[in-house]
């Protein structure tokens, strides 16, 4: 798996490459099936369950977990926490890839993907929250592309354009935070139109707030989680500054996440109190809800807090895995598990293996491109020509 093995063996058949290759091959075959046989040929979607894991995982989780981009760049450039500077580029790269893959995955899910520009350029349905999501994701993907471009421009040696783009950093960061606030929250608000379909414990007038707040700690946790993976496999690509700052980034982000998650738990309970849904907590759905909220939000929050106090890097990393899983669980609960909860079991949705394979395919492409970019471009280190801005 690690880069070193590849260099020692001088073979492209590393375990990583073999597995990734197999998944991508599988994905390509299913792609052909999707675009020749329609959604019916590869998915378990039906008229009652129009959205499956391509929306629940690829879109909702993809966007939430790519929140590290705006969180990190905001903390560094807007809040002036310069000690997180070395974390900005990896986070922006992840966010850019994340959003690009979300858009790619959408091409599988919508019926006529070439019409995806229609809502923006041809016939905007401004009453739809999906319009807001679409517009913001489109704009934010553009912002992320520009934010990411300095790394590529340094790699290509295009000094002049690079310096021009770097000057836009603050404006782009602010723009990014605005767009992220809007679409992270409106992804939750998408479900507000269907109070009769989503279980009351998950349905709330605060859905947009829940989604936005959880995107913050999803982003923070992803930066930590990804950092720990990068340290294991891409250690040799990191410069002294990155290595020196990385522990501080993990502990600092862990501490921030602990606070945000506790706030989130608070808002979640306010949501329950608002609609007086306490009695649902005693049901099976309530237990599932509490598992999500206690097991995957409160527990990692405490772990983060303890780890930040004891400066325990290992614990921060474990907490980040739990927190990321918690966000995934929450998004899947809202989009799939607790959606259509009132329907009889026979009418409920469970993804087909091909749907899961396409989701894996999308993630794998992300990992492969991430590896390529981080090994080629100045992501974990400062380009010698451009040090200190």
């Amino acid at each position, binding site marked *: 798996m690690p880069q070193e093995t590849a260099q020692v063996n001088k073979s492209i058949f590393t375990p990583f490459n073999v597995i990734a290759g197999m998944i991508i091959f599988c994905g390509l075959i299913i792609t052909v099936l999707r675009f020749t046989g329609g959604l019916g040929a590869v998915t378990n979607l039906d008229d009652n369950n*129009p*959205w499956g894991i391509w929306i629940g995982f690829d879109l909702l989780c993809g966007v939430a977990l790519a929140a590290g981009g705006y969180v990190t760049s905001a903390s560094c450039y807007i809040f002036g926490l310069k000690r997180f500077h070395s974390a900005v580029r990896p986070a922006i790269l992840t966010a850019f890839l994340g959003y690009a893959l979300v858009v790619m995955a959408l091409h599988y899910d919508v019926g006529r993907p070439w*019409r995806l520009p229609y809502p923006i350029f041809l016939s905007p349905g401004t009453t739809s929250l999906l319009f807001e999501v679409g517009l913001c994701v489109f704009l934010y993907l553009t912002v992320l592309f520009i934010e990411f471009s300095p790394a590529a421009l340094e790699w290509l040696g295009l000094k002049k354009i690079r310096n021009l783009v770097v000057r836009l950093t603050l404006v782009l960061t*602010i723009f990014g935070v605005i767009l992220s606030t*809007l679409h992270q929250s409106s992804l939750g608000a998408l479900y507000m*139109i269907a*109070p009769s379909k989503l279980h009351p414990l998950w349905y709330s007038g605060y859905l947009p707030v829940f989604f936005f707040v959880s995107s913050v700690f999803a982003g923070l946790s992803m930066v930590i989680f990804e950092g720990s993976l990068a340290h294991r496999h891409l250690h040799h690509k990191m410069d002294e500054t990155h290595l020196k700052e990385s522990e501080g980034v993990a502990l600092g982000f862990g501490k921030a996440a602990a606070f945000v998650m506790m706030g989130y738990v608070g808002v979640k309970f306010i949501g329950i109190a608002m609609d007086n849904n306490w009695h649902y907590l005693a049901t099976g759905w309530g237990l599932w809800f509490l598992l999500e909220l206690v097991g995957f939000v409160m527990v990692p929050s405490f772990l983060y807090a303890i780890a930040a106090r004891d400066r325990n890097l290992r614990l921060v990393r474990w907490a980040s895995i739990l927190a990321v899983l918690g966000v995934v669980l929450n998004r899947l609960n809202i989009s799939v598990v607790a959606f259509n909860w009132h329907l009889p079991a026979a009418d409920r949705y469970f993804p087909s293996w091909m749907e899961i394979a396409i989701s894996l395919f999308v993630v794998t492409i992300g990992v492969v491109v991430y590896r390529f970019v981080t090994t080629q471009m100045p992501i974990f280190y400062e380009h010698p020509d451009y040090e200190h801005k």
Partner: protein
Amino acid sequence: MGISRRQFLGWLGAAGVGATAASRAEAASNKQFGGYPDSFGILHDTTRCIGCRKCEEACNKVNELPVPEQPFDDLSVLDKTRRTRFDVFTVVNQFRKKDGQLPVFVKKQCNHCLEPACASACFVRALRKVKTGAVVYDESLCVGCRYCMVACPFNIPAYEYDEALTPRVTKCTMCHPRIEKGLLPGCVESCPKEALTFGTRERLVKIARRRIEKYSNAYIDHIYGEHEMGGTSWMTISGTPFSEIGMREDLGTQTASSFTAGPLSAVPVVVALWPVLLTGIYAISKRKDKIADEERIHAVAQTVADANQEMTVKLAKMKDSMAKEKEAAINLEVKRALEDAAKEAAESQQASEETGSETPKEEK
């Protein structure tokens, strides 16, 4: 109750022109909207329905849908509860409380909400409420995102899942093209029992109320669709509680768009406030840095200055003490020299006294 064909056609002369003139999309907005005046609707009276499926057949024919495997006169289809599909815009379902009891038949199709959830949810305005009362779909705009299906509280829109590249969302059109031509909707026209009544919505509400009042034993005192989800153009009256015939009673009377109005209204707030706030935070953090920098420079300068001054003082002191020491040393030397000289003088005097010479006196 029923409307004669001539009377109906007469209205359409006027309404049809109005409807076609309103070609501009009229999608649901966040405003309170009580429906287009004089828009049409259909009243379904389940107490009259005999489950003959003639409406299904007519719907199939009128919309040129594929002919189903089981013919329409095969009533065994009714044994299963069905929903609308991409090739079936309307279904009649049979509900039986207990065995032996007479079944209740309920026709299911798009209810043509006054403020449709699907139209509000559509991000390309492919679905819209038109002035005839129908909720119509424009295939040429649809992206196929299926958010309308998520949004519909009645689970009506269906999707051509097996269509690879040109899948459409399908649903009852209230026979909008026929209405414009002055024809009755296919199902209404074919119903042999007058279980379906076509007319302006206002009129239909009155008809329904009159029936419920007149035969209060036969009906539940509720017009389903009068207020559900803000009201629908298609309404149903029944002798059986609606929840027992597959119609949800927990949908409430708020329009779908009212649920999303809140988050949509937050957009301008975020767009207006965030840049100000974030720039402010940036300015504050930058100022903090600047002040910290200034303070550091100042502190360094101060330290240097202090050190210099201290040094000067020390140096001065040292000079002073050195000068004193030097003076003392000189004095001491002088004293010693004097003493030496005195001693010498005394010695030489002694010597001269001994020798008798007087010279040392002048030396002094």
